[in-house]
């Protein structure tokens, strides 16, 4: 089964190369999907191996798939599939000149994340995480507008500075491991209990590494790049970043936590992660109250969920299965939401919540899924986020972290109310009569946006005000047609199947005791969870 360790790296890499070299639009567009499938299938193969009590290794143990790695790889593949497949319609609008690089970079991004989760070496994992920054930098800046450039700059600077701090931490951990005789960065070795590691170094190294990876995980106060990058990146990329990139960083934090907990006990990182988690919830709550942009809304919601996961990590063993399930549920849901948000942005031509009204009446094709996904995101059953949140909170009280969890609940309530208000504002209600320019503008953009292969993406984000002004003098507005019946747009504006599959998966996954439950338990055991 070891071959499944190189497939998630090699296949995307080859596909990335092909999509750059071979001038076939079909291959180019499908290559990210194929990469995701490769990662997903590899992940599933590894999961089956793990469940059969094997631990596949490769390259002299440099690549290793225990239950946690296999699970994370599967999540990367699944979320990647939803984002790339769901984003197929979107990719059609990419300027031809950059199209190849766009698809290639997504494949590289997937490979980097795969490497990060299956590497049994902190250094290699660090390099892989940094590689994700490199791969996504151009993806964030893909639209080439001043705004996307700004987002990309902030992303790269803040992201790589954060990851550099993590490197400092890793260096310290490496220094501490000299106490074992042979300096090492292997997870497997370092997570063993009872190693003669220098506690002071481990403490500092662990803290710095967690702080650094918290940047990539979007935890406050290191989260600042996240809303900008998520809102400016193309929707599938946002979905991938929010859905799995953050989770991969969390994975790193969890691994490091295992190392430090074995040496200095759980209290230190518990406090740090609790503070980080609560701060993230606070930031998300404060900035969601009056949020004006729906993609930023999703971004802040990611910060919130990462905060909850961090609190779960702080709680430790009892909450780990819930945290891991959270990763999957949040990844799939958020990828779905970002894909839909991309479509809304495309057809409405504006990221402003105020300008997107009455979607449920005007565009039920998008709004229904949007509402369902939002319900999943804010934690309604049967979707798995509900179980994760309940699991974390129950475990929190059982672990004596009632105060932290209590504060988290208060903040979650604010977030819940804000998200509901914003979602309702976007979807519910009667459409304004078609006399205002704001409604007419997207209508004017719509025909060209729907035509494949034409470069309107840049125009859409950059020139919306101009389009609005232009539309206000078109005959559509000159003729008062207040009673024009609204024809509901039932089109999904892209593949619906991946989104339905993603939501279906999150809806049922929490009820599958076998094998999901076993896998989660094993994965938690890897982290020193349930014994």
């Amino acid at each position, binding site marked *: 089964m070891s071959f499944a360790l190189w497939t998630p790296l090699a296949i995307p890499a080859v596909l990335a190369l092909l999509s750059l070299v071979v001038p076939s639009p079909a291959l180019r567009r499908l290559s990210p999907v194929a990469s995701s499938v490769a990662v997903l299938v590899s992940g599933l193969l590894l999961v089956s191996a793990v469940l059969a009590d094997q631990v596949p290794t490769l390259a002299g143990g440099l690549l290793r798939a225990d239950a946690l790695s296999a699970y994370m790889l599967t999540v990367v593949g699944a979320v990647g599939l939803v984002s790339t497949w769901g984003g197929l319609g979107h990719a059609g609008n990419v300027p031809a000149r950059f199209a190849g690089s766009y698809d290639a970079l997504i494949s590289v991004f997937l490979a980097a994340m795969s490497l990060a989760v299956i590497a049994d070496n902190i250094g290699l994992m660090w390099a892989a995480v940094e590689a994700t920054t490199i791969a996504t930098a151009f993806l964030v800046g893909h639209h080439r507008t001043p705004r996307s450039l700004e987002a990309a700059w*902030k992303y790269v600077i803040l992201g790589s500075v954060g990851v550099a701090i993590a490197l400092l931490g890793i260096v310290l951990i490496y220094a501490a491991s000299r106490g074992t005789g042979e300096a090492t960065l292997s997870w497997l070795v370092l997570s063993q209990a009872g190693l003669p590691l220098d506690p002071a170094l481990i403490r500092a190294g662990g803290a710095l590494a967690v*702080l650094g990876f918290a940047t990539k995980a979007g935890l406050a106060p*290191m989260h*600042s790049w996240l809303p900008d990058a998520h809102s400016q990146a193309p929707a599938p990329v946002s979905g991938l970043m929010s859905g799995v990139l953050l989770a991969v960083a969390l994975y790193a934090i969890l691994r490091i936590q295992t190392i430090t907990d074995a040496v200095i006990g759980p209290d230190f990182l518990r406090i*740090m992660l609790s503070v980080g988690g609560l701060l993230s919830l606070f*930031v998300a709550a404060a*900035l969601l109250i009056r949020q004006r942009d729906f993609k930023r809304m999703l971004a802040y919601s990611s910060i919130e969920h990462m905060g909850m996961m961090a609190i779960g990590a702080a709680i430790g063993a009892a909450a780990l299965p819930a945290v891991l399930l959270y990763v999957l549920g949040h990844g799939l849901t958020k990828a779905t939401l970002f894909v839909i948000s991309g479509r809304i942005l495309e057809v409405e031509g504006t990221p402003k919540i105020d300008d997107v009204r009455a979607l*449920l009446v005007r565009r039920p094709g998008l709004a229904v899924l949007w509402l369902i996904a939002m*319900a999943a995101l804010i934690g309604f059953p049967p979707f798995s986020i509900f179980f994760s949140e309940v699991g974390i909170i129950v475990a929190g009280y059982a672990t004596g972290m009632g105060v932290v969890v209590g504060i988290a609940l208060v903040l979650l*309530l604010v977030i819940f109310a804000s998200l509901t208000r914003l979602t309702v504002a976007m979807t519910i209600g009667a459409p304004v009569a078609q006399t205002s320019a704001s409604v007419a503008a997207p209508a004017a953009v719509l025909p060209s946006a729907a035509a494949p292969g034409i470069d309107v993406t840049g125009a859409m984000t950059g020139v919306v005000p101009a389009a609005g002004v232009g539309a206000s003098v078109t005959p559509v507005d000159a003729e008062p047609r207040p009673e024009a019946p609204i024809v509901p747009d039932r089109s999904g504006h892209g593949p619906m199947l991946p989104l339905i599959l993603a939501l279906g998966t999150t809806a049922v996954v929490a009820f599958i005791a076998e094998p999901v439950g076993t896998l989660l338990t094993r994965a938690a055991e890897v982290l020193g969870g349930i014994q």
Partner: protein
Amino acid sequence: MTALEAGMLSQTLLLVVAIAAALATPLSWRSRVSGTFCTLLAAAGIVTGAIALAGGTGSLSIPTALPMDPLALSPDRLGGLVMVVVSVVGVLASLFGIGSARVASASRTAWLSMAVFLFGMQLVPAATDVVSFLLFWEIMTLGSTALLLAHHATRGTVASALVWYSAMSQLSFFFVLAGFAMLAGLAGGTGFADLATIDPFTWQASVAFLLLLLGFGGKAELVPLHVWVPRVLPEAPGHVAAAMSGAMVNIGVYGALLVVVRLLPDGPAWWGVLIMALGGVSALYGILQASVASNLKVLLAYSTTENMGLVFLGLGASVLLRADNATAAADAALVAALLLMLSHAAFKSTLFLGAGAVARAAGEMNLDRLGGLGSRMPWTAAAFGAAAMGAAALPVTSGFVAEWMLLQALIHGSRVDGEVVSVAASVAMPLAVAVIALTAGLALLTFVKAYGIAFLARPRSQEAKQAREVPVIMRIPLAIGALLVIGLGVLPGPLAVAIGGAVGPEFTPDVRTIGLAGIDARGIDAVLDPITFVVLAGLLLVPVLIVLFLSARRHPTRTSPLPWAGGGSRLRPRMQYTATSYAEPLVRVFDDVLRPSRDVEVTHAGESRYLVERVHVEQSVSDVVETRLYRPVLNLMQRAGILARRAQNGSIHRYLSYSFVALLVVLIVVSL
């Protein structure tokens, strides 16, 4: 597989079928097909609940991917009772929906979420552990939230109602979640059996109790968590409002029962005082707001707050008396609380269905524009009238029986063998009686107003004039509901006995039937056989009727085209008293509590200061709790939200400083 397990499985299957039906059937058939399946789903709930109530056993476990204590469904007798209650309301609502759901309220979403809503409600009482309780609780919330979407495209107020409802539901949910999680943390397990081992006399248990009380109180629409009610229920179609206000609130009560009967049955006395205070305030506030409301659905919504307040008053009295060792009275108070809950379910769902029928027939919920519907919709009027009598706690209705039992428990509760049980009880019980009495008086006014203004007198608008009786399929649930109200009022004995059995073994009320089907509460020495009153009244009616017929034969009734009106000018319908004017004296009396805003605008005729052309008076009563408690918090949050934007002002230097400061802090901390 036992019958109970089969019952729960069949509910699950029917849910799937109902969802499939809602998705697959075309619009013209949807209400009939989906409504039928929803009815069946609710009927399955009745059967399952009845089996559980009769002592059937069985357990259904829910698989879960998380390694936690097993999630199991296995309703006990109390759960069975509640399941029956919510399912009966579910049947009524579904039947009514078959006839009433049209256009928007017959959308796929509407019927799908109706099924989900019913399913969630019916299975909450079956949960035997924290997580499955919360699971079905949230399924119920999700279903009810989605149901509110029905008229979103035509009514601008739906959006704010939705937000309020979701936020307040979530607030309740978080209270419950935190409370249960605390208890589970104390007990070391999430099963209710584990939770029942907790000592209630620890501060953690008290904090958890407070959280749970607030959470369940919020679902039961208690003050100050009721603010969603007057916004939400008017937006819901009649059958949905009936299901929410008639059935869902019972889940809140069930939660509270679960806590004080099953999990922490011997709590300290102050718990009881607190529950009583919460209930008493809710009852008074609810009925005051109801009495001045002019929108029929708002009136009914606030009345729910009142009734639930009374239920909690009884519950609290039970806890308090039990803590004081006045066991018999405590048991009776508990039975009374449950009777109230049942009777409320019957009359409130009928009232809301009646309101739905009125809304359909007259297209209007504002009482000020209704009138004269009694002769136009006799069936609806009769059913609504019967239910209104129940709500006003008049004799031979279920409401009366319940309030009678509660009052009996209270006045017998403060003494055991002639000795005062405790100072708390001897102050709380008279106050409670006073609250109930005042509440009952105001309820009387409220429902006289509701029925009298809507169904009697002359129509106050063209729409009301053109109203026609609703189709048969909608009359059936109305009739069933009305029969339940009267039936439970005339023959309450068996029900009281069943309740007595359901609250065991923690509580053991000595309640038996007497006479035909009367209540004999041995513990508190109180007997009521309503049927005898009916007989007595019938006997007394005979001579009156004889005189009447004799007189009528010789002096037949004459009909005049217009009322006499004291010999004044020709009265037009809009000269009649309206709902607003009807409540005006009361608004004046309770000016300080209701704080109405009045706006009087006088237009003078020409130059004269003395000749008035027209006077425009506007008066509105807003919810004081909302304006004084919620608004400031919300405004503060809005301002904080705007302020918080500065933290994310786009400057990368600021962002870097965040990271820098975090790094410095971490460095300093690790070197400490």
